């Protein structure tokens, strides 16, 4: 019946216990993830310091005089001197840097010139709006683009497959070419002005609807959890167009990458060998999917990082009231504490996202870190 039966007795118990101990993720033998994190942490600190340094230099490159800008051109010389003194701008630059770092450690990002609130509070208030927008956009992008990319990457050769491939190819190039702010405007025109289906670009909720109590800051989640369906539907309707814009523009790279990786994995020798062995279709596809995962995870993380910056323009178009709009206002108003704070937060967020991506990569691919 089979070969190897005569070869000896298998210790059944040994096999079973060995397998259950190690499991499918057996390559994650404890110390590997921790060791990697430890090594990464070493790099993290200088990187964070570097970021604070660059942020500081960036914002203090101010050619104009913030005193004049804020107090107006009619301010007297004394008022301006007093203003500068109050903000510690007369101290030498390196001392300003030390002071700023000290404040940072205490979690103090300064007071915004424009809103007169602590920047930390401003950011904390607006962060959920942006996070909700980009998170939902990312999730929908994944749900739409990954299956499409898999289908296009399979390249079965049939007419439908080739057509799908062409469409994916064209869209991939288009997605990077169309400006997101312009697309948002076009969608507004079509769906709001012409078809009356979408709400006006005035923020996250209809006027007159109270936002739900803050649990996460995500209007969708919070209203759903508190059973406030009116707020929920309003939030969803307001999210529709900005999310559609972001998905169209930023989903492109995810689609392209999925398709490309799927196609190249399917060309790999082990896939061919799997078919030669007569493996079931399902098994082969599973192998292909699993092997396609790492680059897709990477690009997802990268896009998530991009979305934070990209959301800036879309938020402006839709008056979203999130961090992006805050950033634009800060820059337009020469509000340098707010700008500083915002840039710092954005950079730290990016670093965190990339770190998560690297960890995910480590979990998925057993070859890394050995």
């Amino acid at each position, binding site marked *: 019946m089979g070969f190897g039966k005569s070869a000896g007795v298998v210790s059944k118990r040994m096999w079973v216990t060995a397998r259950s101990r190690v499991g499918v993720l057996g390559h994650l033998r404890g110390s590997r993830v921790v060791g990697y994190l430890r090594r990464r942490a070493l*790099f993290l600190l200088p990187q964070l310091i570097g970021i604070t340094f660059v942020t500081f230099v*960036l914002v203090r490159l101010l050619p104009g005089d913030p005193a004049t800008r804020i107090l107006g051109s009619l301010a007297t010389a004394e008022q301006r001197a007093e203003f500068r003194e109050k903000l510690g701008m007369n101290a030498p630059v390196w001392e300003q840097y030390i002071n700023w770092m000290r404040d940072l450690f205490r979690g103090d990002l300064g007071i915004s010139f424009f809103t007169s609130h602590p920047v930390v509070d401003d950011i904390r208030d607006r962060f959920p709006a942006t996070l909700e927008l980009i998170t939902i956009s990312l999730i929908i992008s994944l749900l739409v683009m990954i299956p499409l990319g898999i289908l296009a990457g399979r390249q079965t050769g049939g007419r439908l497959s080739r057509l799908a491939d062409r469409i994916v*190819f064209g869209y991939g190039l288009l997605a*990077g070419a169309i400006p997101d*702010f*312009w697309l948002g*405007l076009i969608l507004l025109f079509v769906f709001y*002005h012409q078809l009356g289906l979408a709400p006006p670009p005035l923020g996250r909720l209809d006027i007159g609807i109270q936002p739900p109590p803050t649990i996460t800051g995500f209007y969708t989640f919070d209203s759903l959890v508190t059973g406030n369906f009116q707020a929920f539907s309003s939030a969803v309707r307001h999210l529709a167009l900005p999310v559609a814009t972001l998905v169209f523009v930023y989903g492109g790279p995810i689609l392209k990458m999925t398709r490309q990786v799927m196609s190249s994995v399917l060309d790999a020798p082990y896939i061919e060998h799997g078919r030669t062995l007569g493996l079931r279709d399902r098994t082969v596809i599973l192998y292909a999917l699993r092997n396609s995962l790492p680059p897709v995870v990477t690009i997802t993380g990268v896009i998530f990082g991009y979305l934070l910056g990209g959301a800036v323009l879309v938020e402006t178009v839709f008056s979203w009231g999130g961090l992006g709009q805050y*950033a634009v206002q800060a820059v337009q108003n020469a509000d340098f504490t707010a700008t500083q704070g915002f840039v710092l937060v954005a950079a730290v967020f990016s670093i965190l996202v990339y770190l998560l991506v690297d960890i995910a990569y480590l979990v998925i691919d057993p070859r890394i870190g050995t």
Partner: protein
Amino acid sequence: MTYTLYFLRKNPLTIVGLMIIFIDLILVVFGPLLVPYDPTKAAFGDALRGPGIAHFFGTDHAGMDIFSRVIVAARLDLLIGVLAATISFFVGVPLGILAGFYGDRRGWTSWGSELLMRGMDVIQSFPVFIFAMVLVAMAGTSVRNVVAAVAFVNIPIFVRLLRSDALSVREQPFIDAARCAGNPEWRIALRHLLPNSIRTGLIQGSVTIGWAIILTAGLSFVGAGVPTPTPEWGLMISDGAQNMVTGQWWPALFPGLALGITVFGFAVVADSIQRVMDPTAR
């Protein structure tokens, strides 16, 4: 050469892309001669007329002919894009090659290479658009600053790409052979690594031109780009934004269309160059 022709036959989109770039080139060179109206002359009596015979693309809120402005804006956007991409290229490619060649080895040059890469890490931690926006806003809105900012934020990509390219090429035996023949390190880097890596750099360069144009438009849209009232696609979209919501779609549509088509053309051509030069796909 025959393969190129075969490729073109099988990929009509590439021809479309080439045509787009060609048309853009014409607009850049001959733009101001082709416009029916003065693109910076306001005529408030004519404000917000829809597209028609007199004004192909209509007029904006200041009565300026949109068609003329779109054509003239091509010149500015394309020049900024190409210039910024070129600067990025010429700064990033040599840095990347040197970083790759000297990296991961003993000696102070390796240390310098590490430092460079950490620097690139830090710069890339900032979201691209935000970084460029703050740069221009802090330094002042002007064409020169926009070019500098856009060039700056695109440098890390070239450095990384060329560095990884150089890292793999330098392991090849012919580099050692050159060394045995007595070539000094710098000449090896220049004569042997450069030609191999330049292909990667050029492909990335054409992609970067597209990115640079879009970035410029985005910056101008939020007021951190070129100063008003220069005809520039992003600015025109910004001007037309409010009109969009009230139903006058033409001031914002046409510049965006021109922008999208142009960048699309560059993207298609860059992708085609990459595929034509890939010997495994034949």
